[in-house]
């Protein structure tokens, strides 16, 4: 049954359905229970499942992360909310030195089924330390999955899959996506699989989260120039679905990866590295569009200029195609 709902509702439905399906699932974080979440994503869950399953915690990211890890290896399936992705710096020790190493150190005996949801991204005028995209900080952590939906259907389908996944998963909810609506059929979406959001034959645009929409807009703009762009929504950043990107590049020979995040060390570089290694012979052009080597500014004209938008994407493609 298909419904049209917004992104935040899609997230809440996923949490609700998984809390109902498995009583090992627990949800905790700062203000998630009684207040229903600072982004109003989790209202009603505390009332429905009680404080044994859904509860608030002190402002203690270290303790939150440790609690998630310890619970996950002792039979529970914790979902933790880290209010802003910028605060993931505080949980990094637990993720890196505990959660993602336990499977290996126990000789693949004890998995760590944690989902760490976090609100990320710029465009909301929240300033330098509430607008970052932490994905790149975590790309180099073996054992970690990073999921990044761009629309309500994927948000719900991927979150449910993430909760059922036995590995630590960072689940990113871009704050500018909460209000967008879309059709949701309730199907599970597998982790590690990208989606062709729009077909085309002249250039492949690879992106994730909010920037997918800028890419789709850019593709519309380019029709007028006679350029048919194919847009790929990665949906999962780690592990990357390289075969889908390669198949597209085989067709278009030209790939641009658009990342909301600084150019240096970004995940866009990882995509290009894999495409180059495995599809060199199909390449006629390959480049990235990302943000400048600078923190996110606050004032609207500054922030807008900072982020990759449809006009910039279309302009760069135009210049390099014609």
């Amino acid at each position: 049954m298909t419904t049209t709902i917004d992104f935040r509702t899609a997230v809440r439905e996923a949490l609700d359905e998984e809390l109902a399906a498995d009583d090992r699932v627990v949800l905790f974080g700062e203000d998630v229970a009684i207040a229903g979440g600072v982004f109003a994503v989790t209202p009603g869950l505390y009332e429905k499942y009680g404080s044994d399953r859904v509860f608030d915690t002190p402002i203690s990211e270290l303790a939150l992360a440790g609690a998630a890890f310890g619970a996950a290896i002792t039979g529970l399936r914790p979902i933790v909310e880290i209010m802003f992705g910028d605060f993931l710096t505080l949980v990094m020790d637990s993720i890196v030195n505990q959660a993602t190493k336990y499977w290996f150190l126990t000789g693949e005996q004890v998995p760590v089924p944690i989902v760490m949801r976090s609100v990320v991204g710029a465009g909301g005028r929240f300033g330098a330390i509430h607008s970052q995209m932490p994905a790149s900080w975590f790309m180099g952590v073996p054992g970690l999955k990073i999921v990044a939906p761009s629309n309500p259907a994927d948000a719900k389908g991927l979150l449910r899959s993430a909760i059922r996944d036995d590995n630590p998963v960072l689940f990113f909810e871009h704050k500018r996506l909460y209000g967008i609506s879309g059709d949701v059929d309730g199907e599970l979406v597998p982790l590690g699989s990208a989606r062709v959001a729009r077909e085309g034959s002249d250039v492949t645009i690879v992106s994730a989260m909010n920037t997918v929409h800028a890419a789709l807009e850019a593709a519309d703009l380019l029709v007028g120039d006679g350029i048919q762009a194919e847009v790929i929504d990665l949906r999962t950043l780690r592990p990357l679905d390289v075969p889908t990107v390669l198949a597209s590049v085989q067709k278009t020979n030209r790939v641009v990866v658009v990342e909301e995040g600084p150019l240096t060390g970004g995940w866009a570089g990882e995509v290009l590295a894999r495409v180059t290694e495995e599809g060199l012979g199909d390449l006629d052009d390959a480049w990235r569009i990302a943000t400048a080597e600078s923190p996110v500014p606050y004032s609207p004209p500054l922030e807008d200029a900072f982020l990759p938008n449809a006009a910039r994407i279309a302009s760069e493609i135009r210049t390099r195609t014609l």
Partner: protein
Amino acid sequence: MPRLSDSMEEATIAAWLKRPGEEFRRGEPLVEVETDKATVVYEAEADGLLTEILVPEGGTAALGAPIARLAGGDDEVVEASAPAYMQAPFVERARATPVARRTALELGVGLHGVSGTGPGGRIRKLDVVRAGSTSTANGGVKGATTAVPLSPTRETIARRMTQSRSEIPTFDVTVRIDVTTILELRRDVERAPSVNDFVVKAAALTLREFPPFNSSFVDGRSEQHARVNVGIAVAAEDALLVPAVLDADRKPLAAIAAEARELAQRAKARRLTPDELSASTFTVSNLGMFDVHSFTAVINPPQVAILAVGAAQRTPVETTSGGVAFRDTALFTLSSDHRAVYGADAARFLGHLRNLLEHPLSLLL
């Protein structure tokens, strides 16, 4: 910094042979330079005075960068840099994307002629496609034009022939050789070696006697080779290939004949190995089968010589008794690199060759 090796991008000053304030004459050694291949002495191109050393001993400079200040005989300050002929640009591998290269192959477009419009002048597929589709519709006074681009092999050959003719100071010496006896010998033997096989064997034995012709000229000097590998020019479709008969001086004529046949077959089928194509120390090229009476061939660098063989023709010659007889003679032209060998050397070489070919029994041993 002069270009003292074909592959150097920079080099190190090993030793200055003149000090600031010292005068020099044209041709005098100025500086020893260590390139990627060897240590080479660079000589002054004109009289002058060394006023200032810019790169000291042990220092490194890029090709073309100033290494010293000189004053000319008429007080003109000149910065020493490479002479024009040494700066002749080597054709580099074109900057093109993988798909552009693939398209160029498919369309038969030579990348070197294509101008790139990608970032940094990179050649992209679009540029290749545009270059491949040139054709003028009605033409003009020359009629409609069809572009015939060079295949990669023909491009390589074009490049090497250009290099040979522009860099090597070639001179040509021709002799007329009486091949009557060879032709008579051939008539008496079943499946006899060809005339060219006799020439290959004779050339090999001559090369052994004249080592300077069995050499490569590289980096300003001759390198004599211990083995005598005679290359045979074979016209394959769309290419001129030169596989080598290795150690031709030691092999009996029959073996040379069998090998030459086999190499020619594989050349036409394009199944020669890179080793076979790069082993020649000397080349024999024969257009006799087309009734060409003489021609000059282009030396294959880094070899120092090539022998062009014309067709045997019935020629009237004066007999010892003052009469006229007809003999089978052919014109042989030896083209040589004047940096390695001189006219008299070439003449002596041909003399020895003629002797062997006019008394071919020695070749049968």
